[in-house]
């Protein structure tokens, strides 16, 4: 036994061994992996900022407010209609998807539990998270756009279909994190199930639900494929949600980046930068919200 042997002076000293070397090799491999992952990310951010900042900053704030030049070879700003379009479509999608998603998750977790119907719904929501966005766009094209024409609402519908399963999933996860003892405490005071959910469970899960919804929104804001079918490519401002073609930043990037005119390409980079900033702001807001209001333990 180790305890019986006499303790030599150098016995406890750190020794050069194969184990130590192996550990050092693994550590450097992991650091290398992180660098490999970080490089493309940094490269993307850098190129968007360097190329987009040119157009956006030189004519600030025109870039954000002027209409898109119809003649795309003409240099100069702006992307105003696209920004408004993105905001309209994303806001519309949020108003449809978030309430439906939260209520659906409440049903699945609090009322449905093990019932067959709930299991089917949950399964279908999981499947929906994997449906390609262009397929959703096609679906909206067939059901809405062909009857009612291009509109921001069609785009909102398509994005809502994409957001819904994500909101349901993250909300259900948050509801699961609320400890059962809180619900029991409310029941023990004579509170009904619906009242308990409204006044105890949802407020407790709210920070998580909000940050999950914000992340879904950030993702939806950048979707391109469904909007191609539903929204169109207008160049003028169109604040009307239900009528007439509209446009969005992602659609404009698609259209302009492949154009042969440098001016159009510049605008595409500017739009890309704007979209990146929008997504960043929303994600940042989600983090701040979670940190400030997280369920205090």
């Amino acid at each position, binding site marked *: 036994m180790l305890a019986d042997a006499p303790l030599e002076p150098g016995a406890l000293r750190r020794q050069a061994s194969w184990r130590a070397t192996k550990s050092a090799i693994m550590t450097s491999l992991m650091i290398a992996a992180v660098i490999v992952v970080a490089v493309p990310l940094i490269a993307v951010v850098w190129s968007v900022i360097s190329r987009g900042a040119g157009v956006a900053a030189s004519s600030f704030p025109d870039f954000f407010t002027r209409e898109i030049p119809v003649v795309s070879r003409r240099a100069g700003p702006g992307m105003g209609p696209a920004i408004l379009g993105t905001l309209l479509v994303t806001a519309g999608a949020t108003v449809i998807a978030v309430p439906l998603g939260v209520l659906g998750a409440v049903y699945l977790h609090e009322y449905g*539990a093990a019932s067959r119907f709930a299991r089917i719904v949950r399964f279908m929501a999981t499947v929906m998270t994997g449906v390609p966005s262009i397929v959703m766009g096609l679906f909206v094209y067939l059901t809405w756009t062909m009857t009612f024409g291009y509109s921001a609402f069609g785009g909102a519908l398509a994005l809502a279909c994409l957001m819904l399963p994500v909101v349901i999933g993250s909300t259900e996860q948050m509801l699961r994190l609320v400890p059962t003892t809180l619900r*029991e405490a409310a*029941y*023990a*005071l*004579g509170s009904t199930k619906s009242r308990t959910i409204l006044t105890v469970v949802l407020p407790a899960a709210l920070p998580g639900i909000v940050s999950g919804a914000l992340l879904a929104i950030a993702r939806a804001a950048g979707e391109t494929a469904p909007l191609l079918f539903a929204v169109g490519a207008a160049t003028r401002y169109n604040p009307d949600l239900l009528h007439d073609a509209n446009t969005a930043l992602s659609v404009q990037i698609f259209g302009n980046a492949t154009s042969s005119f440098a001016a159009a390409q510049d605008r595409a980079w500017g739009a890309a930068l704007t979209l990146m900033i929008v997504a960043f702001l929303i994600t940042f807001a989600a983090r701040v919200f979670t940190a400030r209001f997280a369920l205090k333990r």
Partner: protein
Amino acid sequence: MRVEITEPTPSLQRTSGQLIHLEQRRSSLALEDTPVVLEADEVEVFYGSFRAVRGVSMKIHKNQITAFIGPSGCGKTTVLRAFNRMHDVIPGARVGGRVRYRGFDLYAHDVSATEVRRRIGMVFQKPNPFPKSIYDNIAFGPRANGITSKAQLDEIVEKSLRAAALWDEVKDRLRTSALGMSGGQQQRLCIARTIAVEPEVVLMDEPCSALDPIATARIEELMRQLKDQFTIVIVTHNMQQAARVSDRTAFFTVEVDGANDQRCGTLVEYDATAKIFANPSDERTENYITGRFG
């Protein structure tokens, strides 16, 4: 019926370190006189097809503290939860036999669990205040029962906090989060929250097990004060606590069904606390009290 309090048996005296106070409470005749509030009649509780507890028949008397003692896993908490229909929230749980509150069957078809729980409240083992302000925690129950007037709620909050001996400590910070209090304060808050709806019975599931001895002593003192207004049933792992605080004690134990090695809890003995600790009728009770088992 008088209860004979005899000298402790020699085996009891031999257990060192176990100071069991045998308070001679106001005449044991008083124990029989108060009306019966809760009655269990051959109650058994199933989780799915597994029978967790069987053969529980007892009467809980008004304005008394009844303690459930026994080793782990013998069904004390299960029986307690059956008294206010808390098993409804567990899918697959079923209560057999009869539980009567003032003569009315609690598990009848037309009985609303919410109404039952308004009259029979519960304090849980781990303090579980809502992540709201102290005021909103106490006001939750009354609000759920329809009281909206601010003046009324203010009054109820103050009354409940005073009754729970918490008012002086928190009166200046009613709007701060309840989670910022110590464990003992949180548990007293939970008790205040429970009595704010003015139930008749307060069920307590090991309320002091998560607390330090000083907080425990304060809650035991609180229980003695609350006894005048409420009927209290307490599950406790701590025999000495049962001896200190309760008027009646019920001893539960686990039985193993030889055939299929199934464990099932059951009620062994239920009597005045002084008798249970000084002169128990059943040998199993004596073994538990003297520490030979459990």
